[in-house]
């Protein structure tokens, strides 16, 4: 942890974060983590790269829904402080799901427009969160900064691949 304060450079800083989990599940088209200042920490899309920007827009707009849900939770109904926010909103082609941690980190999942089981989604998000926690706990990671660790990218892509493979409860 001293190393951070003394600004040692992370080892594989230049490691390309893209390319991870290229052909994941066809359901999931994009996953993203957004930081406390609503800045993107990690965004990975699993479709053609020319569409990547579209997902940036989608994820960014989804932050509005986060705000709405947090600001007036009465609409959220029973599960008041649940981290899993469910479906945020559909776009013309996709569905956007959200997950908000205690530390105001926002996890966003964009799927192609199909019906999904909530259990799968919850499961995915908790795995995703776990991956993030481990990545963020890396002493070489400064909180609030983008996550570029390739290990994290790999882990996320495996999580994405394994999406929906959770057994029924």
């Amino acid at each position: 942890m001293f190393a951070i304060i003394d600004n040692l450079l992370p080892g594989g800083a230049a490691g390309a974060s893209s390319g991870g989990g290229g052909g994941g599940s066809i359901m999931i088209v994009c996953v993203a983590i957004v930081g406390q200042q609503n800045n993107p920490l990690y965004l990975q899309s699993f479709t053609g790269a020319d569409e990547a920007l579209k997902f940036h827009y989608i994820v960014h707009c989804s932050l509005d829904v986060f705000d709405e849900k947090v600001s007036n939770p009465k609409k959220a109904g029973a599960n008041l402080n649940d981290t899993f926010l469910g479906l945020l909103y559909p776009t013309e082609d996709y569905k956007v799901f959200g997950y908000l941690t205690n530390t105001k980190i926002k996890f966003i999942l964009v799927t192609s427009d199909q019906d999904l089981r909530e259990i799968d989604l919850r499961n995915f998000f908790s795995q995703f969160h776990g991956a993030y926690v481990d990545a963020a706990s890396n002493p070489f990671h400064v909180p609030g900064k983008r996550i570029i660790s390739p290990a994290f990218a790999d882990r996320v892509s495996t999580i994405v691949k394994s999406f929906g493979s959770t057994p029924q409860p």
Partner: protein
Amino acid sequence: MEDYPEELRTPPVTLVALVGLPEFHSAISLFLHTEQPPINTLALPDFSNVTAIGGKERKAIDARMPPPVGILKADWLLKHRTRVPAVLAVLFDREQVYGDPAQWLQVCTHLDNIKNVIRGRNIKLVMVIVQPTLHGDMNEDRLVAFRKRAEVDSRNCLTFISHDPTELKRSLSRLGSVLGELSTNFYREEGRRVKLRIDKRSYSSLDLSVRYNFKVAVYAEFRRDWVAALKFYETAYTQLQEVVTTPIQLLPLQRIIELKGVAEQIHFKVATLLLHSGKESEAVKWFKQHIAYYKHLIGPPDGAFMHWAWISRQFHVFAELLQTSFGSGPPTLVSNTTLSGLTVTDRELQPGYYYQVAAVYMARRRYSFESALTTFEAFEDAEAADMLDGPAEEIGPPLYIGQAPRLLRRGNTLDLQCPTPAEYLRHAVVMEKNYSHSRAAINLLTKAHEQYKLIQASRTIYQLGSEMAREYFNARDYANAKHLFDTVAGMYRKESWVALLGACLGYLRECARQLGLLKEFVEYTLELAALPVRTDSNETQLSTFTVLVGPAGPLGQFQRVQVQKEIMDVLQEKQNVLPAREGDVGLALSESHPLLLEVDLLSPLRAVLSVCVAFHEQTIKPGEKTQCTIALLTHMPLPLMITKLEILFNQPECNVVLWNDSNVDRLVDSFQERQDGVLKDKIGYNLELQPYKWKRFTIDLIAGQSGRLECLTATAHIGPHATICCQVESPATRESIPLWIFEPGFDLLPFMDIDLAFLGQKVTQVEEPEALIDVTINTSSAGLVGELFSVPISLKSRGHAINQGELEVYISTYSASGSLEAQPSSPIDPVVAAPAELLILGNPRSDSLSQTALDGDANILQKVTGPIKIASVPVDQGCSIPLYVRWFEAQSITLVVSLSYAAEDSMERKDLAPHRFWLQRNIQLECEEPLRVSHHFTAPYRRDLLLPDSLSNEKTSSSSKAVVLPSNERSMLVVTAKNICSTSISLLSVEIEEKDKSACQINIAKQASLQAKVHIQAGLLNEMSSERESVELPSKTSKGSSVSIELLPGETFTQLFWVHPAIISNSLDLGVICCTWKRKQEQETKVSEEVDIIGMKSLSLLKEGDGCCLDFPWSVTSRVQMSAVSVEETPLVLMLDCPPYALLGVPFLLFFRIHNRTRALQEVKFSVLDAQGFLFSGASRDLISVLPLSTHIVSLKLVPLASGIQQLPQITLSASRFSASFQPSPSSTQIFVFPSSRALEIQKPRFFDSSGIIE
């Protein structure tokens, strides 16, 4: 929604028809229209018109229908709302009914015609017999016959009272209710009839069932049975989806269009009904299914744009429906988070959402149309006419909903009339060509924007903004596009969404290029190049220009490098910005168009260049060398080459220019810059900034001015006419670069030295320079009261030339606390309170040294009030101010001297006012009294006077009594001046100023003062000599001797005066003793001082005029008032007469002369006591009587028995008249007896030297 036909948009309204008696139609139709529910009326003025509502003969229910050529008749709805009434009301006047047979016959014929007409479609019939008033005989059987003829029962045959208002109203309402009821029946029956067909499934194709369901629904709507209507619409809708059996791709385009058209209408109906019944989420679900199903019915790619148009329209219409149904307020609907495919989120209840999506599809419509257009123009022949674009008579409207217009000239069967696919497509393309997609999209987006504003979905709004901007860009409205993109970019900067920002910037710089804004172009480009993207997007996409990504192409390391190369060439003027339009040269920098980029702490360009400055010391001494380190950082992907770097401070003389060693050619003009003296150049730095690496330079500075020294800006010259002016930061308070703050591994400290890195400041404090002037106040010793005590203040310059200096001088006495309480000598309150005053010698008019020196009247004493101006004193010279203190009382004071001046130094900064220095000196001055002057009177020597009063007074023995002097007698005044101060004084004169000469003459005993200086222990020798002389020479004047006599400390000077009172008085003021004295010192120093007097004072003081002009400035006169004396007659005078000395054993004579000054005989008794030093002979006691104004002498012969000072025998007189006795003082009756005459010889000379005065 506007382009939908009226009959579709609004719920259907019952239609009834009126015939006969047209004069009442308007009134009735008006009434019916206002009925609840309203009823439209079709007024047929004349019975001949009735045929209009007739229809063709109905087919039997079970008749097999041929497969239709369309699903819904285009005009069916309209027909039922405008042309097919539910009820026909026939109006007859009672005259016609009850009138003569001729009229009756006509009525019958009318009735028959009507029945013929309406038999086709079972339109209900109502008979109305109009009569003006209630009463009037009526023919009962004629009425029955009438009903029978009309085949209506009595309920449907009513009389209408036309002229009685109340009755009129009643009959109107009756009519209305009857009509309403009948029409309801009509529509129910119609619906039931059609439904029967459905139930019997007596149709060949599903199309018909769709149609039937639709019709049933419409009939239900007619009778306001919404539930049923909805039900049938829904079945119609679902059945429509079953219509398509063959795979969708194989369907011809027109068919698809038709299907979608029908679906659109039915869905619209469904949605409207749902929303009206307040089931928003239901409606949303329906809509989602609707879209989900038809989204993929694109059909052949050429016509894809029509599909997108359709989809976009769906969203648009639904958005409008939602908006209208919600009014303004957003819905309050708890979204269920069940994950069934039909979850409705809050978003989906926002009309804005649908507007937005509609806009998206509008854009998609445009893209696919553009591609379609290219292929179309490639293959189709351009001049082929658009068959479907012609006059109305040739081009008929489509018969069925969603079908193409018909070409009437081709024949009269539908399949002939319908156009070929090619024609159809061409028509569509031509139509689409003059459709402005961008405007439509922008409208949609604006609507969405308004909607989203209601829920403050800021980011969504920004996304809309960028979409809008893209549309503007597409429509070549670059100004608007740029404006929008600018605001949007702000948001993405704030939340540092780099990719989105990159896209915005790509558009922005394109806009700037198109608008010819070079500065903006450069700024956007630099920002783009400095975006934190380090992952390399593969180059294959570089070519692909997707609209989202924008003209800059997808963002990546490669692109950043490209962009920077490009912009650097522009900045270094190797090439121009590529022109916006063909043929023009594009933007370029030049002498006339230089470029200056300001980078402050908020600027997004901080990533391009940010500068950190830290001084090594917090405080530095002026004029001493100090160090400060400058650290530069760029986040551009390639090294940033700076040709020269100007670092500016708030003290311009510290400014520095660092030159890159690589370009020596620039050095030339650098030198001539040096001539300006503005900038100091330093040559030979390597100013190439490596990406992401701090470049540090440590420079030496010499701060000239005191106060804060702050580094303000660093200006980097990138090209010959391109500079970046960068506001510098302190490392301690440094803001990390926006966007890059979230990049891991990029926050290196600007400085190696940890302390500097954490605590370094770009500001340092320069201490005050100390004044280079010595102010010395040299005082000899303690001052004396009354004297002009010279306190010369001398200024000596040690390197500062005094310029317009001011000297504040004032006296302050010590207060109890010991702090100085100052009394500045200002004209307003002259220093009266002060125990002393300040004087200055010189000419008030003159203002500078030179004049004063020449001035003759240089020695005018001025009271010092206000500051003393000091003209300029060159470096290493001095001057002195001849200041004088005159005490009024012996009290120690503190002299405060404060000098303030402006150092006039190097000429180069005339601009800023020269710094004023200030320094103060205090000195405590002691003061003491110079002299103690005392005086007393004595009677003349050996001449005693009888003063009866004094004697009598003595008896009363009052100690404090005025001295008594005899009148017309000289008595002696002894004035003693004792030097009680520590310095030696030279006494110039001791004088008496008489009160008035007539009353009393005071003459100095002249000789006495000749050598008046005698030590106290000097004996009372040679008294007689002095006495005698003074007697012999009475001085004319009372002026004292002006010979200066030096009195050492503690010494005393005595001066004798004769006092000769002329009048008798018991309190006689004799006058004042004036001792003129001066401090004993050499005259030469004085003179030398008088030469270099300078400091002068302002004119105002001269008017006060207390500059006493003295010819002899250095002497002081201290005056002592003598106490008053009383003067009286003296009756008797006793004089004692004897030789000055005696010899042992040699007899001599002693006479007592008793003089009677009265005009009466005086009896005097005397007695002589003998003295042991002598033996004498003569009368020792006797009573004698002295004659008036005569003298009686008593003589004694004495033989000295002892040598030395011997007491003569004492005589005591007592005047019987005054009963007063007295004897001379023993002191005056002594004599010195020499042992022998020889001794006398030796002694003789000694007497005359040591002649003096008895103390």
